[in-house]
């Protein structure tokens, strides 16, 4: 650590003094976690990667417009060789083309939209559902707990892929069905985590204190207990996003997720398997995109977990700003 020149210290002290009189504010565990995150290089790096991916996904139509290549537009003359083999990366097609002469770069960017959308929406749904059901099971215990917990056990023990195939064949594949299927198979693990936490937290004296001042069940559940289970839930939620993205890709790969011609990474991977010997770019770019995205989310999840760990490094670093 470098020593600050004395002049700055004095200046800071003078500036802080008058303000401190009426704004004494403690740093919440959230703020502490956030400060720890900001000082974690891996966290900053992975969030930057995620931000870039999000930006690329958002601006995919702009890129498509600039290149003049639509996501589903086929370039039979320029995009395919005379033998009908995809064209490799070059100046017109930066990431090459696929078997139908479509631009792989544009399709990877469009695929990011689906992956992120499904990943975030499905994880969000799963977390909301899991938190509510886990809270209810842990808080009310007894018969309510038995019913909800056994239901969670059932969901967790279902062979999800077989079940997903059956469900999709019944409802027909679509984006909504994919999201619903992923959320349905993910909420139970969130529910279990929340329930376990609630079981220990509801025995704390501050819950009794809330009851003694006349707080109702809902208030106790959401105002007193929920903030205390949020940290592990958020950690798990960050880990759930890459899982959902992979889950979606799996469904698309098997042809029971989002239907072609919509570009998704899973679709592209499944289309590329016949060509991996002649067109490496066709399999490599969607695969890499999937790998980088899930890895960035997983690393961020690890950092979030460390940041919320009360035994983690105490921060003596001052918060600027």
């Amino acid at each position: 650590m470098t020593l600050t020149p004395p002049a700055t210290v004095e200046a800071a002290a003078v500036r802080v003094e008058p303000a401190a009189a009426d704004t004494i504010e403690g740093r919440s565990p959230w703020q502490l976690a956030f400060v720890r995150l900001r000082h974690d290089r891996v966290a900053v790096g992975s969030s930057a990667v995620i931000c870039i991916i999000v930006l690329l996904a958002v601006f995919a139509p702009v890129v498509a417009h600039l290149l003049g290549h639509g996501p589903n537009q086929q370039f039979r003359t320029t995009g395919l060789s005379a033998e009908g083999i995809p064209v490799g990366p070059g100046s017109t097609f930066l990431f090459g083309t696929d078997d139908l002469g479509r631009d792989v770069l544009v399709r990877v960017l469009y695929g990011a939209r689906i992956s992120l959308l499904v990943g975030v929406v499905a994880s969000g749904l799963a977390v909301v559902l899991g938190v509510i059901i886990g809270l209810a099971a842990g808080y009310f215990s007894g018969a309510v707990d038995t019913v909800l917990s056994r239901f969670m056990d059932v969901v967790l023990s279902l062979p999800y892929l077989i079940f997903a195939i059956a469900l999709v064949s019944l409802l027909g594949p679509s984006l909504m069905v994919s999201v619903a299927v992923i959320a349905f198979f993910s909420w139970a693990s969130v529910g279990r985590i929340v329930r376990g936490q609630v079981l220990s937290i509801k025995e704390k004296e501050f819950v009794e204190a809330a009851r003694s001042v006349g707080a109702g069940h809902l208030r106790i559940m959401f105002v007193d207990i929920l903030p205390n289970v949020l940290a592990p839930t958020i950690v798990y939620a960050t880990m759930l996003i890459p899982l959902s993205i992979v889950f979606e890709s799996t469904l698309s790969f098997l042809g029971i997720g989002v239907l072609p011609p919509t570009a998704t990474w899973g679709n592209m991977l499944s289309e590329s398997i016949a060509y991996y010997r002649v067109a490496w770019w066709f399999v490599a770019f969607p695969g890499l995109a999937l790998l980088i995205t899930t890895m960035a989310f997983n690393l961020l999840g690890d950092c979030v977990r460390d940041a919320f760990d009360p035994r983690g490094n105490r921060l003596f670093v001052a918060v600027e700003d």
Partner: protein
Amino acid sequence: MTRQVAREPASQVAAEPLLQLTDVVKHFPLRSSGLLAGKREYLRAVDGVSLEVRRGETLGLVGETGCGKSTLARCITRLYELTSGTVSFGNADISRLSARRLRPYRRKLQMVFQDPYGSLNPRRRVGSIIADPFAANGLAKGAERKRKVQELMELVGLNPEHYNRFPAEFSGGQRQRIGLARALALRPEVVVCDEPVSALDVSIQAQIINLLAELQHKLGLTYIFIAHDLSVVRHASDRIAVMYLGRIVEIADTEDLFIRPRHPYTKALLSAAPTPDPDLVNDAERIVLTGEVPSPVRPPSGCRFHPRCPRAQSRCQVEDPVLDSKNIDESDRAVACHFPLADGESMLPELKEPS
């Protein structure tokens, strides 16, 4: 010193019962251990307690760990449902009221908890914790709520500017003040203090006890003060009830109880407390009770204290003594013993059996 100031109004207004407990019983069902579920067993945490709390007084409640003090406190504040018996506040029986109809009484009957760490939500700011009673009851919104919270913080000796801090940033004594501010928010009449100082340093204990006395004087509060530290209870209470295995064995004015204990258990308990004056140590009769506290799942027959009582006789094994003032001819105290001690009487067993 503060104590002396506070005691006077207490003795003036005494006699009017504010809180009446009649035969309060709280049994916790135990999980049957065997596969063949036989007779279900119960932990008899509180087993028939009758008690009267007078307006403006401080009633001390003492006893060993596990004798049911805290359970009784939670029965009074209705944090536990009673197994049987009644708790009356004023003239109203509040022991069977539904959550909604209990609300007005909850306001008048507040509680201070033992653990200054566990009783404050670590994820919420102090201002919001103290405002909880207002929020839960939909009282005093916005700026008014904030003003009231800051008044409360000032009342219990906290800096109102620390409104936005988290409990983790306060010391144990300050946290207990926060708990007290929360309990006082709704202007209660009775405050049940469940070992409010046992988790604190001795120097801080005195501060909190003096604060309690000061607030009692200022706000006309009635306290039920639970503790296992006898010197603390003696300092803080007007009357003391001694509990053993879910029952009250003796209840008397503080000084009467300390100078002339009637129940053998009270005497043993008092003799176990260390004496600060070395000259007095050798004079006092040290009574060491033999054996363990019996399990509250299967309490002894007759008098619950008989297996450990040096004065126990055959009658004690069969007949359960009632908490009564008849057997000692003193109207303002009661003891549950067949053979209560007379003034200065030794604990050694006597052979004379009253006819």
